[in-house]
């Protein structure tokens, strides 16, 4: 017993205690719910069996039911649009800004830091602001676009089925842009300057330097940013209740919002869990890419 206490105070027991406490907490609050989620997706869950662990076994019935939902393919398409274009927009604009702020001018890092403001704001507030900017009749975005002659009549971003998902995509690009830019800036700063000088002496133009030095040197950073982008986009939830609530007629519902609606609006916890498990597979793929792309980095 004394040896045990001694090791806690002055030995490997101390390390194990520190890691163990965090791990036990994480496993209890994240690991077990995850397994429970998979279990529920194979069970019949309703208001009567909500309180019990052992419920009637449903096999793959929940999965079949979810796929047969009339909204399933629409939601799948929306999720794809949301993920692909949010990531694309965040990455391309973020990369352009990172390249711009990598130029050497006074105040570059301070002004760049201002962009991170979006990152600390509550998602729901960002959603509220964009909901107002995108409003159909009095929204400021329509006015700006009309003044520049891009559109001739107001776009009803939130209530037009053709635009509702894009309204959320625009807001999400704004929200995630700063983080992308920051990570890409870190990657850019790590490229040795003399590579560019050597290329310039050899007569490479700016485009060639970007294509043959910047992109290859940034490969692991880009992999990490894209997979973090995929994970982050699939986590994005707050913008949906704030801007469109998934409407009109599910045209802006994505998987994570649909899953939540199933559980907490329709109280169909089994279907909510089933959709979650389907999403989980996507997230797992992204994580594997992320781990592979950071594996070669030097730790320290």
């Amino acid at each position, binding site marked *: 017993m004394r040896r045990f206490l001694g090791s806690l105070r002055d030995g490997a027991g101390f390390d194990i205690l520190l890691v163990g406490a965090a791990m036990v907490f994480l496993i209890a609050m994240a690991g077990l*719910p995850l397994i429970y989620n998979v279990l529920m997706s194979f069970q019949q869950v309703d208001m009567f069996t909500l309180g019990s662990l052992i419920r009637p076994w449903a096999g793959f019935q929940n999965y079949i039911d979810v796929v047969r939902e009339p909204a399933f393919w629409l939601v799948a398409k929306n999720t794809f649009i949301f993920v692909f274009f949010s990531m694309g927009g965040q990455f391309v604009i973020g990369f352009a800004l990172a390249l711009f702020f990598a130029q050497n001018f006074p105040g570059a890092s301070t002004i760049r830091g*201002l962009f991170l403001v979006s990152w600390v704001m509550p998602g729901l*507030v960002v959603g509220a602001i964009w909901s107002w900017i995108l409003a159909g009749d009095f929204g400021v975005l329509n006015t700006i676009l009309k003044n520049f002659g891009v559109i001739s009549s107001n776009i009803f971003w939130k209530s037009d089925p053709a635009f509702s998902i894009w309204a959320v995509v625009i807001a999400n690009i704004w929200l995630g842009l700063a983080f992308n830019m920051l990570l890409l800036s870190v990657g850019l700063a790590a490229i040795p300057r003399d590579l560019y000088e050597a290329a310039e002496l050899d007569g490479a133009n700016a485009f060639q330097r970007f294509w043959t030095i910047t992109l290859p040197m940034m490969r692991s950073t880009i992999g990490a940013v894209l997979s973090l982008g995929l994970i982050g986009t699939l986590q994005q*939830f707050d913008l949906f209740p704030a801007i469109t609530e998934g409407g009109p007629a599910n045209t802006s519902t994505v998987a994570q919002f649909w*899953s939540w609606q199933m559980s907490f609006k329709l109280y169909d916890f089994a279907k909510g869990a089933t959709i979650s498990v389907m999403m989980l597979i996507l997230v797992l793929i992204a994580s594997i890419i992320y781990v592979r792309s950071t594996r070669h980095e030097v730790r320290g």
Partner: protein
Amino acid sequence: MTRPYIQWLLVAVALGLAAVYLFPLYWMYITSFKSGSEIFANPPTFWPREIDLSIYPNVWTRRTMHVFLWNSTLIAAGVTAITVIFGTGCAYVLARYRSVWVDIGLFSVLMLQVLPASVMVTPLFVAFSQLGLLSFPRSAVVLAAAAKAMPFFVVLVRATFMTVPRELEEAALVDGNSRVGAFFSIVLPLARNGILVCAILTFMSSFGEYIYSKSIIQDPALQPASVGLSGFLGPNSTDWNSIMAYSAIYVTPILAVFVLLQRRIVSGLTSGALK
């Protein structure tokens, strides 16, 4: 190097880009300063004709914001406390050793971070209802949100601990300190600033926590400000100047802290974010 006027041109472009990017924030404040009729002016005015601040006290009392903000503060404080207490030790150990086990530990911590909250909320809700935790909804939200916030904290704080020289801790051990003593009197004080920045980040992000609170807390007297905002926000809202005033009251403290600590936050993020 480059000629000076190009430098100033770059600064001007940078400021222009920042202005475009921060326009939504400007629009939030400006809308909240406008009167109820001016917000529906067509075309919209980019500077209010007359500044009308009466909406602020109005929203504050009508929406019982002191209750909501107090709950937000409580939840964020709880999340931060749990995250710092459990996460700091974990990050310290993960930074101290290099072995396969550390890689496995780090990987599993990361894996637990990638799960969307909207995925976790269904099993957590059902499990909490079975355990009877739903009668203490704020504590339930704190537990759930802390598990969500901790992996990010561990990864960032681990990077901070990596910068503390091993030799200092070893010197303390040679001088007769126990591991516990060396940890509390040498390593922790040296990593204090990094931990503080990460704790503030955790506090700010859980101050805006929405999905767990919305799903778990039913009683309006216990809900945080995000749920309070969602109560009068939707695709058909028209009450825009109160919504913007509410948002402004909600985010101004966060923004103030961010602007004050901007340098530290950015450097904390850049050192740990990619590792």
